[in-house]
């Protein structure tokens, strides 16, 4: 427990001083956005064992809505983010309501197929800019006082949002609601026989995860100033799965570690190896699934704190 606190304090300090360590702030913000996306995804995969294979749909559509409102209609920063999140939430509600009718592998296939539907709608709709995407999205000002144009200012805004989401997800997982999700993860038929309306719990978890993924997408649109089709594509859905799996699904820090690894890898490798980067990503997937299913953080927790893990299990 003490080790845990130390890790979080060190990480918080690192996050606060990161822009002054010579790291490129836009890159750091991109990391935070994808880390938030992966944390949102982990709420489903890690704590409820629902593999959504189409999470880019919420990430990307929210990014599009935010970008479109901020650019074309001149909406304020907060309003366009909230609108984006609302769209992601609604989309999550509709797709979730259809997908939770099936479990496991079917759930994955259905979420994938419906996210492909969202992709094609984004490809053909007018407001998304089709193949070109949206460009020149202004960051605007926060509550009319804080201009977000400067990278370091924007960084602290994104960091604050990330911390809020991170704490929120921790709260959810440790709440009675989160305990029911855990029960569903461990043994769904048992949870049903205990009288829980499992589908409803799963849908709420799905909508929450979709909304937070949407928030990550909106922030990413503002940080980078553009949205493209790749943000709603199957590739992005795959990446968020890889981040969560590689870092450790079902752990709090795992998705963050995974996001840092995958985004850094892509950033630096795509210059060196070009198109071959997808071979490397695929290779990591294979290695991860065959030898490394707990992910980095999961393996570390198992090696260094097996007793603590057991205690938690017994107490739970």
């Amino acid at each position, binding site marked *: 427990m003490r080790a845990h606190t130390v890790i979080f304090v060190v990480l918080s300090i690192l996050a606060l001083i990161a822009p002054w360590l010579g790291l490129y702030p836009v890159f750091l913000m991109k990391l935070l956005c994808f880390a938030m996306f992966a944390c949102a995804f982990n709420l489903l995969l890690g704590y409820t064992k629902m593999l959504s294979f189409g999470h880019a749909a919420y990430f990307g559509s929210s990014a599009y809505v935010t970008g479109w409102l901020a650019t074309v209609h001149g909406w304020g920063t907060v309003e366009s983010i909230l609108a984006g999140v609302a769209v992601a939430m609604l989309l999550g509600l509709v797709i979730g309501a259809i997908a939770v009718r099936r479990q496991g592998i079917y759930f994955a296939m259905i979420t994938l197929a419906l996210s492909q*539907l969202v992709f094609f709608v984004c490809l053909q709709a007018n407001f998304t800019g089709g193949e070109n995407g949206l460009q020149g999205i202004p960051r605007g000002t926060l509550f009319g006082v804080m201009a977000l144009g400067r990278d370091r200012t924007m960084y602290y805004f994104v960091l604050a949002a990330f911390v809020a989401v991170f704490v929120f997800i921790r709260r959810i997982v440790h709440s009675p609601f989160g305990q029911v999700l855990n029960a569903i993860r461990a043994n769904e038929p048992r949870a049903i026989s205990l009288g829980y309306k499992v589908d409803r719990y799963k849908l709420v978890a799905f909508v929450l995860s979709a909304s937070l993924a949407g928030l990550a997408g909106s922030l990413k649109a503002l940080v980078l100033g553009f949205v493209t089709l790749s943000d709603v594509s*199957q590739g992005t859905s795959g990446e968020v799965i890889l981040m969560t799996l590689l870092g450790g699904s079902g752990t709090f820090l795992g998705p963050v570690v995974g996001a840092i690894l995958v985004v850094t890898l892509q950033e630096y490798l795509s210059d060196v190896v070009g198109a071959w980067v997808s071979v490397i990503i695929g290779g990591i997937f294979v290695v991860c699934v065959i030898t490394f299913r707990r992910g980095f953080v999961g393996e570390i927790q198992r090696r260094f704190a097996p007793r603590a893990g057991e205690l938690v299990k017994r107490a739970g």
Partner: protein
Amino acid sequence: MTAVFGVPLPAILGQLMLGLVNGSFYALLSLGLAVIFGLLGVVNFAHGAFYMLGAFAAYIGLQFLGVNYWCALLLAPLAVGLLGIVIERLFLRHLYQLDPLYGLLLTFGIALIAEGIMRGLFGASGKSYPVPESLQGGFNLGFMVLPIYRAWAVFASLTVCGLTWFLIERTRLGAMLRAATENARLVQAFGINVPLMVMTTYGAGVALAALAGVLAAPVTQVSPLMGSSLVIVVFAVVVIGGMGSIIGAIVSGLVLGMIEGLTKVIYPEASNIVVFVIMAMVLIWRPTGLFGRE
């Protein structure tokens, strides 16, 4: 000239024919997917990649090795099927005891690798594969011209689908396969080599995908990404048809291909999404799929 919904009849028939061609590829692919899932419990995300590899095997054979279409029709599925067997031995067999989600993730990674390698080697642009000489031209049916190659592609796919159905439902080998799908340990106890059967089944399912790729090569562009969006449509087809049924996979593949073709004439903007919309409606109405038993 007759017209339906203000669209001339030949245009409708032409798109229906195209839809039938696509539908027969969906049928071949979803058939392989269903057989693999039945025995291995693995949803083979790499199915689209194997389809792509089949088409590329034919292309490479013709361009660099002088292998003609008819030989490719036999050799490409064989080569890609062997690759499938290697992948099953190296990776997939470690996952049978685990959650089926891991099989999906592993094959997703394999698909990324295969597509990445082909893109690295051949670039992202499409390559054209010529229609073999003996299948060029068309029949004039009076109301439309039917390209011979398309008729052949549909005929070949449906024949292979029929043979596969016969093999699984009507032969002793198929009976063993079905029994192993129900209870692999019991079948193993009767002295049947189940791991061998699992390996061969994966290879055969993959070979079916590659065969669809070879058949598709002359009617579509051969490109590294040709399978990646196709596999999602095939997933939707499988969800609609219900994973457990072979006839379901074949019929829903064909029908959805034709519906997609019709949508292209009536409301082209929706032709990419119509299968997914139908999937959503089927799920609301009948969550187990049209032919599913659960």
